[in-house]
């Protein structure tokens, strides 16, 4: 296998470079997926039927916690990738593990939030608004859940095999995914919650 030493580890093989480009294009598709959800959300946001509207059910505290936790996790995974670049496997693994813990914390708060919505009469089937709200949030949450499992698998591989071009490539791609989830959350925070509470 050809390994290009002048490149960072994750870019050092031909297949690694292809994987990263492929993943960027996949993120393009994900952008379209969330854009469609947001467009549908804006279409249905005022169509509350007999159910509650956003301003009636949104609570700022759990949302702030979620935002804080997820934004921090984006920062820690950045530190993790930096540690990977300088070849510090232990630091890299620690930062990735912190990221996953923060992700799990985010998910925990989100599950609390969903239970709360159902409790106050804003379940999935109540109106077009609640359907699209819970679907949009749920799709993001599902992505985070998937990311948690993915991240654990990668950590196990890094632990077992060390920082090789392959594991570095996987970790880097995972970090792209994680940052992307954060970007989506910023849109959810701004245009679903803040706009909804105003």
């Amino acid at each position: 296998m050809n390994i290009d030493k002048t490149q960072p580890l994750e870019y050092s093989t031909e297949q690694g470079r292809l994987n990263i480009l492929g993943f960027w294009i996949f993120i393009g598709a994900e952008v379209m997926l969330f854009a469609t959800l947001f467009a549908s959300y804006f279409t249905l946001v005022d169509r509350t039927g007999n159910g509650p509207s956003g301003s009636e059910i949104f609570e700022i505290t759990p949302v702030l916690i979620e935002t804080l936790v997820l934004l921090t996790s984006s920062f820690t995974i950045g530190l993790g990738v930096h540690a990977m670049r300088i070849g510090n496997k232990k630091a890299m693994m620690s930062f990735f593990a912190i990221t996953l813990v923060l992700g799990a914390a985010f998910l925990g708060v989100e599950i609390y939030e969903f239970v709360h919505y159902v409790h106050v009469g804003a379940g999935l089937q109540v109106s077009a608004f609640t359907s699209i709200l819970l679907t949009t949030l749920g799709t993001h949450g599902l992505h985070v859940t998937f990311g948690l499992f993915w991240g654990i698998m990668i950590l196990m591989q890094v632990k077992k095999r060390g920082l090789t071009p392959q594991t570095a490539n996987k970790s880097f791609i995972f970090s792209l995914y994680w940052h992307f989830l954060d970007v989506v959350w910023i849109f959810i925070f701004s245009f679903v919650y803040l706009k909804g509470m105003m």
Partner: protein
Amino acid sequence: MEFFERFAVPHPSPAIYASMVAIALTSIAIVAGLTYFKKWGYLWREWLTTVDHKKIGIMYMISALLMLFRGGADVLMMRAQTAVPENTLLDAQHYNEIFTTHGVVMIIFMAMAFIIALMNFVIPLQIGARDVAFPRLNALSFWLYFMGAMLLNISFVIGGSPSSGWTSYFPLAGNELSQSVGTNYYMLSLQISGLGTLITGINFIVTILKMRAPGMTLMKMPMFSWAGLITNVIIVFAFPVLTVALAMGTMDRLFATNFFTTTNGGMDMLWANLFWVWGHPEVYILILPAFGIYSEIIPTFSRRNLYGYNTMVISMVVISLLSFLVWVHHFFTMGQGALVNSIFSITTMAIAVPTGIKIFNWLFTMWKGKIQFTVPMLYSLGFIPIFTIGGVTGVMLGMASADYQYHNTMFLVAHFHLVIIPGVVFAMLAGLTYWWPKMFGFMLNERIGKWAFWFIAGGTCLAFFPMFISGLDGQARRMYTYSEATGFGIWNMLSFIGAIGLAIGFILIVYNIYYSTRYASRDIGDDPWDARSLEWATHNPVPEYNFAITPQVNSRQAFWDAKKNGHKLFKGGYKEIHMPNNSGVPFIMAVFFFIFGFGFVFSMWITVIASLIGIIACLIHRSFEKDHGYHISAEELEKSEVELRGAK
């Protein structure tokens, strides 16, 4: 008993029972045949686990042809039903199911599969690559598409087919008006095969951007590869919209959400918008590769360089952008007001400009050329006038105000069939005939091929021209019967005769494949058409590694230059080649997806969860697997190259 009752077909007819028997017998025959001839191992090793883009392309092609005949059988029943007034051959529900599945099968499972078949086979060869960027994902793409197709196809014997049109408009497709599981099948099978298509899109963008032979800049790339690149960009941006729409539709039907309902704030027009935001670009996903194929075939058989290469590329880019800006023209009459209609009317008609540029480019390519009337060229020549008629009537439909007259009539049906059939089907048949020798090492018989062409071209005209008249007279589409007083009878009878003509043409193609397999000469060399692009520079049949030495490109017509001007394509000696290993995981994973889809259709949640665990297990297996592939050494390479040259 209740558990089994929901698998029953809601509107059984003798035809459906006959199909059940036929499916059972065919399955038994296939299993028995494979066992008797001891081919299970061969099937598994050579096909089910393959990651070779050429074999995947061939499997796509076989599936597409099968789906063509499935969709074609639907058509014959439809046209037979409407051939005479007040016919009672089919009942209304059966007719609804047939036109719905005809649309879905032909667009998603035939046309899409056919373009991806040719892209798979041709593009890596044409750009001088060893394979696609992600060979295993490519296999997964195929199997997901295949399982999606099978899921829709079992619907008419288990539980009932979708019956609310291929557009599946809500509230018609909602639980109240579509009570059978048919629409669940629609949602799930499109979802699964759409996932495969999205993966193909990503795979081919990376392949085309990163794996071109040295010297082949983007503007030196053959036109079919260009078309492939732009098509795949459209796929990546359009298919996620469908994913979301289908997911919402599934949730509406199975979890009682309120996206597209008419109560609790739901909005049925949201489905129409989302569907066509995907659906209109989908039209160009189908037509652009077809344009690419014609741009390969017309120069080859005119013995001229393609006229206006740059404008061809620019017009494709413009078409791809405009394709996302016209979706509202599918529902001009659903009340969005004059301003919105005007905007979408103008963007719609604007697409005619780049398309017209392409038509003129092909005509100028032929100008003063030395035209050879081979079968691929005949399809290309037949395409131009028929497609132009279809296109011009499309501009008529694009005028929002006039559209109020002919929307939802047979006029529309005639328009889009006269664009899609010459645009996609002719191109696929032309491409099939053109690249057949590269795929299988022998030519299809020209004489039978020409007979098939004339039946298909004539059948197309006869089947669809009468619909312009009956449509303007007011015959609504999807109408299962009509009274004699309407006077539609004669036009529908002509359409029926045209459909039979088409059927004869397709049967001739199958006969041609059979005939040529038995009798055609295997001694045809590597370049039987005297063609111009790189796929003809490799051996016949193509070895698994495609090119023993990576070609060096220095012009748009690299292979032509190599032949005529003595430019050297292959420089240097043999070097070791790295190849990916076969893998059964994509197939197994797709089987889990099939079970997942089937469980979802019937709300069998234990099945769904079990198959989901299977899917995740496959993902984990892939993640942990160390797959370094294998190497073909320089000596082996030299040996097999000498053998291949000797085989000529």
